[in-house]
């Protein structure tokens, strides 16, 4: 019972870290995609280097840097802030690549038809390319979200009291060892399976409508 209580206390933080990091990542990914698609060589290079830097360093190192290394004046990040921000910016780099791939999977003819019809750029993005990109991105995006859900456990390394943190604390205090981690694993599965199902459901539904 104590064991379940420990995990139940960790659960909200796991969900919170995942959701916030995903939101930050999604929003930050958009300007990075714009940079990666830019014809301006400087913008492109900056975005490219940023993505490679964010992806090239292990997330746990980013968390350490943000948690222990950042002190701007009186501002110091809390463990939760550092965890969300760190996972968020790393997510931005991966999501930018996912979005870029989805955009370039849209056939060239869609752009040409849009130009020939005389659509403005904003209309092309909001009505033609955007919606088709959103459809193309669903499978990769949910796969990434499920990965992020599990990677949120990295935040335990700087003391965010999420599922893994609470589990290892319980294991040490109770001396019951491995059992709590099996329960934690079950909870992760229970969280991620519905996400996967939802993704496949959406994907099939949208494919039915627009299958070429």
């Amino acid at each position: 019972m104590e064991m379940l209580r420990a995990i139940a206390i960790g659960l909200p933080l796991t969900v919170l870290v995942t959701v916030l990091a995903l939101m930050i990542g999604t929003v930050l990914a958009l300007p990075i995609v714009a940079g990666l698609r830019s014809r301006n060589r400087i913008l492109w290079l900056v975005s490219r280097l940023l993505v490679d830097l964010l992806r090239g360093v292990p997330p746990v190192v980013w968390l350490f840097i943000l948690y222990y290394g950042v002190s701007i004046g009186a501002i110091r990040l809390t463990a939760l802030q550092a965890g969300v921000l760190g996972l968020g910016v790393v997510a931005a780099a991966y999501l930018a690549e996912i979005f870029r791939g989805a955009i370039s999977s849209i056939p060239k003819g869609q752009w040409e038809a849009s130009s020939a019809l005389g659509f403005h750029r904003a209309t092309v993005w909001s009505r033609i390319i955007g919606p088709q990109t959103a459809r193309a991105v669903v499978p990769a995006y949910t796969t990434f979200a499920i990965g992020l859900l599990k990677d949120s456990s990295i935040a335990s390394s700087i003391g965010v009291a999420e599922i893994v943190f609470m589990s290892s604390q319980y294991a040490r205090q109770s001396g019951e060892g491995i059992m709590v981690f099996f329960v934690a694993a079950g909870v992760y599965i229970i969280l991620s399976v519905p996400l996967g199902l939802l993704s496949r459901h959406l994907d099939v539904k949208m494919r039915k409508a627009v299958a070429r």
Partner: protein
Amino acid sequence: MIEPNIRTGTPVVRVTNLAKAYGSNVVLRDVSLTVPEGSVTAMIGPSGAGKSTVLRCMNLLEQPDSGEIEIDGHRINAGRKPNPKNLAALRRSAGMVFQHFNLFPHMTVLRNISLPQERVLGRSRDEANEKSMELLKRMGLAEKADQYPSRCSGGQQQRIAIARALALGPRVMLFDEPTSALDPEVGVEVLEVMKELASTGMTMVVVTHEMAFAGNVADELVVMADGGIIEKGEPGQILQDPQHDRTRRFLRAVLER
């Protein structure tokens, strides 16, 4: 080269001294072409001759290196960066039909035709839908309005694409190999629609390999090879008695197979 027929119709499309190259690969050399109002111009020639490139330059889907394009009085000089307003006006005057239809797969047939009217001409949704349905009926496709394009055959998709372009009230219709991606039997549906369109006096430029269409429907035939126009004039005359050796070789290849 034969002198082009001189007709009385005012030119809707005028292309002057168009040239384009990718590095050392010259795709167009000094192409000039005039399309009088109400006429049908067919462009034929071996693949790689530059027919599609000329057509795609007409509405600036492809940027020529030099030359001048004028459609319905909207003039664009290839050397300079086009003024966006002028470019939009030129594109509004020209309807484009692609080899691969390029319908929007995430919208119903009706939305495909109505959205451009709403966005480009500022029509209300009701006005646009009314116009779309009128065109779908004319294409014999009224019952497809609420389907997605993927549920339509290639011939139907191409006719929907024609309706989408017509809905914007273009002064000229540009067809880029409209039947090349279709089975011959299905292509006929599309050719019928194009014939009907020609008979109503629509100005048309058609890049095609359909020799019967080029011979029977077109008022002017343009033969291209190696990035240039090698012959142009009355279709019957060119098909019967080509002046240029390159034309003769090409016609032999397409007609005697």
